[in-house]
């Protein structure tokens, strides 16, 4: 999920159609972009992760214009021939192997364009490029570069002047001292050498994915751009380059190819030809429940800027633009057809599917137990499954045992999965120490215990009831617990139990079918002290039978 800001006037100009703000907001929502805020100056929009091409106003306008009917059909992106070359040595293969490049000339660097391209680069880096690890973009002033450019892995003691600095630093020091080095150094930090893009005169372009150099940076006087995308995944670097280049082309830029020479192969990028796919009209109607023909479906796809025409055997032949990354299966074309058709034009219809509903048996048992506790005047509470080991063991006065616990939690209070309920109930009573007494509370909830199951854990449901008031004593809670078990038809026996959370000789275990099913007693004053509770507490806890 990425939020972008676009200049409203700019957006409407690129779409080529004006409309009042409320219509704009509605149309954006029905197109599939969430309008967080729409004003006559600026729009704050949420773009979904499957459309990284819409992270810039150019890409957004391109597809949105089709939705509102202002434009239609496939945009041909021409890549002109050139002599620009980038040489890739073998040294980057195990470090950051993929690189693709492009040249875009005659770019008018207006404020809108610069803002848009910078935001596109930033948002792509953050989302689709997985924080620059998978791919990263470099943009440079073409006229400051003498070709051929070399992409290689350089020694950490090589130095150049990084962006925003007034002196040269070694590559190693850039990772330590430059803000971008600190943010993204982790991507290459443990490598023996670092990626470097350098021209034939020794002018450094950048150390991907970290930072550009001051010497080849884009300024207000820049007329022509050189772009590179480096990364670990071939598909991703190509897609990212295409998205960037198409946005610039939509603004009037002229695109030139760059020959990238790897040791084993030579490619020319960007590769902006469409790729072909097809979808059957029967499949479209089957999935969507509509009754449209292939010609109508093709028109809808053209509005989404595909090239589409009805072919043989009810198939629709589709050409997919180079900036689209999300078409994996014909179903992705079906969704685009549905969006263009208009979700609000699709008539909901409830089918006749006769099935009988049913619940898990434990829910019926839980409901009975809850009813009985309420009947005894108890207020239900709901607490978190995640708690701390201090809560579960130390504060309850018992020895620590192994429980399911998390690795990367952000809080020291919530990281261990509860295996019993009473500690949380004690927490509830502490939180309510200023409220009126008597206080009678219960919780029926799931606890997690370790087991040898496939997930190493088991979910068990437990019930815990507790009473707190000046006259709270063992007899009181025993009456409640026994009444509960009697009503559930659970034949039970109560035996003396020694449990450190409870007062010695005022604690019992509940035996059902010869096994320990729970316990009850007067909570030990040391435990009350640990929880900062000043009122006596009596409690019982049982495992809920399935």
């Amino acid at each position, binding site marked *: 999920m990425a939020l972008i800001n676009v200049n409203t006037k700019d957006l409407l100009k690129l779409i080529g159609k004006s409309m009042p703000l409320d219509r704009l907001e509605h149309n954006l*929502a029905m*197109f599939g972009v969430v309008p967080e805020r729409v004003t006559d100056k600026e729009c704050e929009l949420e773009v*979904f992760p499957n459309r990284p091409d819409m992270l810039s106003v150019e890409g957004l306008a391109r597809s949105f214009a089709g939705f509102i009917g202002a434009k239609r059909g496939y945009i041909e992106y021409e890549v002109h021939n050139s002599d620009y070359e980038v040489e890739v040595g073998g040294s980057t293969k195990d470090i950051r192997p993929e690189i693709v490049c492009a040249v875009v000339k005659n770019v008018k660097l207006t404020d809108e364009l610069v803002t848009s391209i910078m935001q596109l680069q930033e948002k792509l880096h953050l989302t689709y490029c*997985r924080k620059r690890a*998978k791919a990263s973009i470099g943009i440079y002033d073409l006229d400051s570069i003498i070709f051929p450019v070399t992409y290689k892995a350089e020694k950490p003691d090589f130095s150049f002047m990084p962006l925003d600095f007034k002196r040269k630093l070694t590559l190693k020091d850039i990772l330590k001292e430059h803000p971008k080095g600190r943010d993204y150094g982790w991507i290459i930090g443990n490598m023996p050498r670092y990626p470097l893009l350098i021209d034939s005169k020794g002018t450094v372009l950048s150390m991907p994915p970290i930072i550009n150099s001051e010497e080849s940076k884009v300024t207000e006087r820049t007329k022509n751009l050189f772009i590179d995308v480096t990364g670990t995944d071939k598909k991703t670097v190509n897609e990212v380059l295409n998205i960037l280049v198409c946005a610039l082309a939509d603004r009037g830029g002229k695109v030139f190819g760059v020959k990238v020479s790897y040791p084993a192969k030579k490619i020319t990028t960007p590769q902006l030809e469409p790729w072909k796919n097809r979808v059957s009209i029967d499949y479209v109607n*089957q*999935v*969507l*429940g509509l009754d449209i023909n292939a010609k109508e479906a093709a028109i809808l796809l053209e509005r989404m800027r595909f090239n589409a025409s009805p072919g043989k055997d009810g198939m629709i032949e589709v050409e997919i633009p180079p900036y689209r990354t999300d078409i*994996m*299966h*014909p*179903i992705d074309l*079906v*969704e685009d057809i*549905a*969006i263009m058709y208009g979700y*609000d034009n*699709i008539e*909901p*219809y*409830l*089918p006749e*599917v*006769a*099935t*009988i*509903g*049913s619940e*898990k048996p434990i829910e019926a048992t839980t409901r009975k137990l809850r009813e009985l506790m*309420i*009947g005894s*005047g*108890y*207020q*239900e509470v709901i*607490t978190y499954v*995640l708690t701390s080991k201090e809560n579960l063991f130390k504060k309850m006065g018992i020895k620590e045992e*192994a*429980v*399911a*616990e*998390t*690795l*990367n*939690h*952000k*809080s020291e209070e*919530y990281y261990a*999965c509860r295996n019993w309920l009473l500690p949380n109930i004690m927490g509830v009573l502490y939180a*309510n120490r*200023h*409220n*009126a007494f008597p206080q009678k*509370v219960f919780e029926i909830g799931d606890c997690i215990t370790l087991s040898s*199951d496939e*997930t*190493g*854990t088991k979910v068990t449901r437990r019930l815990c009831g507790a009473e707190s008031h*000046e006259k709270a004593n063992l007899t009181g809670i025993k009456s409640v617990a026994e009444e509960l078990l009697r009503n559930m038809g659970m034949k039970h026996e109560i035996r003396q139990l020694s449990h450190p959370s409870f007062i010695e000789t005022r604690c019992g275990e509940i035996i059902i079918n010869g096994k320990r099913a729970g316990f009850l007693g007067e909570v030990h004053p040391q435990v009350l002290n640990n929880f900062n509770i000043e009122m006596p507490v009596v409690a019982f806890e049982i495992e809920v039978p399935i």
Partner: protein
Amino acid sequence: MYVLTKEGKDYLDNGLPEKRLLHVLRAGKKAVSGLNPIAVGWAKKNGWIRIEAGYAELTQEGREMVGRKTNMEIALEDVSKGEKVDQKIISVLLSRKLVQEEGAEAEEVSEITQLTPSMIAGGKWKGVPFRPYDIKAPAPEVWPGKKHFFTQAIEHIRKVWLEMGFTEMSGPMVETAFWNFDALYQPQDHPARDMADTFYMKNPRTGKIPAAIASRVKEMHESGDDIDSTGWQYKWSSEVAKQLCLRTHSTSLSARTLASLKPEDLPAKFFSIGKVFRNEVLDWKHLFEFFQTDGIVVDENVNFRHLLGYLRRFLDKMGYKKVRFRPSYFPYTEPSVEMEVYIPEKKSWMELGGAGMFRPEVVKPLLGKEIPVLAWGPGLERLIMEAYALKDIRDVYSNNLAILRRTRMW
């Protein structure tokens, strides 16, 4: 010889009203209009409270009295044990009708306050006027046992699912990444699988995954297997899939259920309601643990219009008459939908949650065939916050008895 009256016995068991008042005021001052007038009167007389601008507040004396037994309470105990009590205190107890002389029930009364069994049986009520009670005098608040308001909401949602013919699914909370992510076609480098967003487990660390299904899921991620898909085109790792985490959505249960279905089980409809976990820092808008509900319809013959039909009916049963659908995105559904409902009181639309049709890449490895699966699941905390006008999401789990006791039924 004196004995306790019924009222006297009640006060002995539960405390004098003016004493209970002290507990109520411990937390802070309260409006007099909401308090027991008898308690207020006696507490004021004893110098335990002061009243200012309609509010009653504990004095230092009152605060000190909280843990201690009052003279009256000791006297009531003595009377109940048949011991002698100071005559001055007895007069007070008599005037408060907390004690009476033994056999005094047989006495004539000029005015009846409390009707007693012997009066009813012996006819002593005939011709004797009843002491008028002020019907407007505030009665003390009582708190019946009650479901937590969240449980009430869950029970309501449960009913909606059952009435629509859905069968419940349940399953592990600690789940392998396989069922939580991989089986739902979420690639292994997807941001949602980040350490920042998901709770990974330290103990236990890894789990087991079903070999046959895992190999089909691997093929699907890597190359789109034998359906018309490109797949994600990366190398899938079974080690990553075995990592255990706290489930981030209940859709993991839908995946497990799909994998367990046989052709003769269709058409089938399943729902789940359960806790899910996200590695968030607790604040007014975010919880690390919350409830989610999920429903799936598995049927050869269902389509997108049917999904919208189900959603409209489901939302209608939830109480939302005006709803709309707009395009959305989830990694495992295509097409995807966001449900919005109209809140008349606020005159605005509220997002309720996502829905969609499971991608063929999800369904094929689990079910063996590309069969349409409709799916939807609103988040519950938002519903609750809307229904109870809560501003801070943590209030849902504050378990503040003052609030729980007073919250209206769902």
